[in-house]
């Protein structure tokens, strides 16, 4: 339980950070809140020779609404920044609510949005709700910037499309026609438990009819996944309990969970059914995005 030796940099600009990442290549790792990385380093699962802390990149710590476009969440915002954000409370309470269900207060004070996404574990709580809200990530590297849809970012457990010299700078949630969204996390106790299943949904409901829906599932496949058949099924249907229950059944057929120390694949599959139904019900009824 001690940290390996490493060189430490705390650059003042994104460009400098990318430069360092490019210079040291695979030897280097970005450090944000450290709630994933320091734990792994102490447990000897990770031993970067160079640590590039992004803590000085103040411009990445803001949550703002860009008029007519959408909400921009800086990658260095902590989970508690999301919980407390007035912008999110007003526009996307489901995101603030997802953040509130994470970890415990101490970890929420340190853990960041960028870290949660980059770490790319299937059980991470923020990716599903970002996917359901059609969010994108802005990646910055030495060769410039690019924008990637959140749902295209993950390629496997711990893997993303990000290049070695790239940072996540921000997450962008576009203005949308969705009328409601919701994320339900199911963990094995009320706090400090990773998701056994996480279900995020966004729906556009008009006069009781579902015009559009996006459903994203966490902790039930190698990456967060969209339940596209479920979405297709929902379009044009009345938001009745029977329809939403049926959607749950379809979603449970779209996940590929594994059995691990926390839960069996069977249990996770059925939980997807239950929570898809419940998350849809809430998103339809509560009617705010």
């Amino acid at each position, binding site marked *: *339980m*001690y940290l390996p030796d490493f060189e430490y940099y705390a650059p003042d600009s994104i460009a400098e950070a990318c430069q360092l990442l490019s210079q040291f290549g695979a030897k280097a790792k970005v450090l944000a809140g450290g709630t994933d990385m320091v734990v792994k380093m102490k447990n000897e699962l990770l031993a970067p020779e160079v640590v590039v802390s992004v803590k000085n990149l103040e411009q990445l710590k803001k949550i703002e609404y860009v008029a007519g476009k959408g909400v921009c969440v800086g990658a260095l915002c902590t989970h508690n920044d999301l919980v407390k954000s007035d912008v999110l409370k007003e526009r996307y309470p489901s995101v603030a609510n997802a953040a509130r269900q994470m970890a*415990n207060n101490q970890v929420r004070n340190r853990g960041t949005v960028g870290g949660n996404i980059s770490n790319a574990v299937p059980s991470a709580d923020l990716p599903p709700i970002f996917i359901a809200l059609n969010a994108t990530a802005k990646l910055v590297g030495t060769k410039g910037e690019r924008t990637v849809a959140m749902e295209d970012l993950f390629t496997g457990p711990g893997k993303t499309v990000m290049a070695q010299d790239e940072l996540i700078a921000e997450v962008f949630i576009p203005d949308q026609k969705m009328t409601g969204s919701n994320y339900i996390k*199911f963990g*094995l*106790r*009320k*706090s*400090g*438990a*990773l998701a056994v299943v996480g279900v995020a949904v966004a729906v556009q409901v008009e006069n009781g009819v579902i015009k559009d829906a996006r459903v994203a599932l966490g902790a039930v496949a190698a990456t967060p996944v969209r339940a596209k058949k479920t979405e297709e099924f929902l379009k044009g249907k009345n938001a009745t309990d029977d329809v939403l229950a049926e959607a749950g059944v379809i979603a449970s057929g779209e996940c590929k969970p594994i059995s691990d*120390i*926390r*839960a*069996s694949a069977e*249990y996770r599959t*059925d*939980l997807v059914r*239950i929570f898809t139904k419940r998350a849809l019900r809430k998103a339809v009824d509560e009617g705010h995005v």
Partner: protein
Amino acid sequence: MKQDYSYVGKSVDRNDSYGKTTGHAQYTADLKFPGMLYGKLIRSTIAHGRIKSIDTSEAEKLNGVKAIITAKDVPSMKWGLSPARFDENIFCIDKVRYHGDKIGAVCAVDEETVYKALKLIKVEYEELPAVFTWQDAAKEGAPQIFEEYPGNLNTEIHHHFGDVDAALKDAYYVRTDKFQGQRTYHAFIENHASAAYWDGDRAFLYSSCQSVHYVQYHLCRVLGMKMGNLTVRQTNVGAGFGGKLDPTGLDFAAVILSKITGQPVKMWYDHAETFLNGRGRHPMTMELTTGVDKNGKILAHKFDCVLEGGAYTGLGIASSYYAGSLLGVLYLIDNYKFDCRRYVTNLPPCGAQRGHGQPQPRFAFEHHIDLVGEAIGVDPIDMRLINARKGNSITTAGYEVKSYNLVGANKMARDASGWTEKRGKMGVGRGIGVGNGGFVTGAGFCQYRTDYPHSVGMVKIFDDGTRAYVYSNAVDIGQGSDTVLMQMAAEAMGYPYERCQMVTGDTDLSTLDFGAYASRQTLMAGWAVKRAGAEVKKKVLAKACEMLKASGRIKEGFGYLDGPLTPEDLDCVEGIVFVKQEPAVKLTFEEVARKYFVDHGVLLGRGWYHPGKLGGNHKGAAVGTSPAYSSATQVAEVQVDMETGQIECVDTWDVHDSGTIINPKLFHGQVHGAFYMGVGETIWEEVKFDKKTGKLLNGNFAEYRLPTALDMPPVESLTLDDSYEPNGPYGLKEVGEGATTPTMGAVANAIYDAMGVSMTELPITYEKVWRALRDKKASGK
């Protein structure tokens, strides 16, 4: 029996609250000595095998490494906690018996070097097949873990009182149920730590333990030292719950390494290592058969229990006896058969954990008796009322029970919880359940054989009377024993509690106590310091009498006095000595004590306690016999999500028959903490191992899930006003462990009431509930 006391019965502030809440409190791992080295244990990386070679040469070359020791460098005498089963060595000699077993120790100039050195040590093994369940251990031809335990059978108990078979034959209804418990872990926050140094031929050891005396005794026995040459000391202890009663490899290694290096050595476990040190709750496989008459009166009970013991015995023999010995205290059972086996396996050893061997059998029995009652149409609380023991009685096994109000506890819990309106009436998904429990208030015997008193106390008044030092090596592991002992000593002396100070945690300076286990300290150390306080008071009153007479303030034959003034005419309360008939005639304790010091030297009071000969003559009677027994009833209300299986414990009531409550705030704290542990073990907690390698899988608090504050229900903790125990000082008896024993049964019964499926396997996880509900649906019932 109720009296007006100054301190007894008052929620005075704990003596350690300032230090602990501000972070000033020191724990063993905080200690620093000049030239101190840091050390850790070398642990086995396989579950079972012969050690072929240990190569430490690379590690020794590492800059900063000061010493590396293995079995060849230390005495080979075996130790343990049950004299009949000493089977543990300081370091493994020929074989390792579990993944994590102790192979040796390293010390170096700093923490980092120790970890680096550990990685350079190469141990070569000849791997042997291993067994991780008692079922595998008991199989014909199973690998033998110890030569001493053929068939891996570590102990066997057969208790038979009355004629069970005949009584079952006559019963109106007979039922058998099977239950399975799990391995749990104490989860104290402060991991084990030890620090040692030598001065000439004298060793000094700081140990985060539950008994300085037992650590001193066992170390001296194995190391061949006189007890006067090893001082065991303590700082604050961050809890124990039974897991710090056995000496650890750290205690032995720190003493030996500091001798070899001539420098102080501090050693510690991280959380995963504390899991590996083990000594937590045994998983038990239990089969219960009960025969009742048509009112629910128990005619006979048969209890078959198998304990999965892990690699060493530790306190496991006592755990085995406790599994069966206290049932007959709770309930009147004339015909009782208890058969028990404990097997060794290739996992960390199991031992004592709050409630010792009793909580899982309590869970099994409390659920089983509900199923019996249901079958014959008797309400759960009525089942318990019909069978509950009453005070001033003798159990079938011969234990004497003085105060005992389980009947009152059940009635109070029933009324407080709204039982009658709720039970079976709250609809699907919501349920209420009851469980009973209780515990010994101290064991009747020392853990090793000795004729020593169990507790010795002393009070020394400072020269000018401005402070009272209360001596006892009772261990405050966070339960607040220092506070209640000072309350009792202050009461007995008539001296202000606020001016008392504990002298404890030091085998040189303070006085013998066997330590924190078997819920013994408040009663046993309580008697010792109460008696010490009383002796001080006696001396103070005598001196005050002399002073008053000399002062001329009292005239013989004056008013209320028909003879000369005697000490009996005086009393002392809260630091004021006064004439009982005329309280205005008074002296301060301080001036009297000062005068005593001038005339005679130190003002001392001494006290001691030995429980004497207690009831029970059968083999194993020693585990279960006690000067006093608590009893308790808990009611729990739960909500079960009938789709996901998620359980929420929403409300609880506890009535503890605990005699006089010395400090209500600390008492309720014990009840809350006990319920917390119990509900955690019911729903969430389980230590897991890889089924093929025996490697610990969840040695951390992310995957060993204790409930969080959000999972914890409110607890209404109630007491019985007329509870008074004649065998306890001020009429007290235990609360620490007893309050954890009804919980699993109460919660499991509430879950059954909510979901209608009997859950017989701990922990009752959300997934198990989900599965049970799914299976029930599939079977169409």
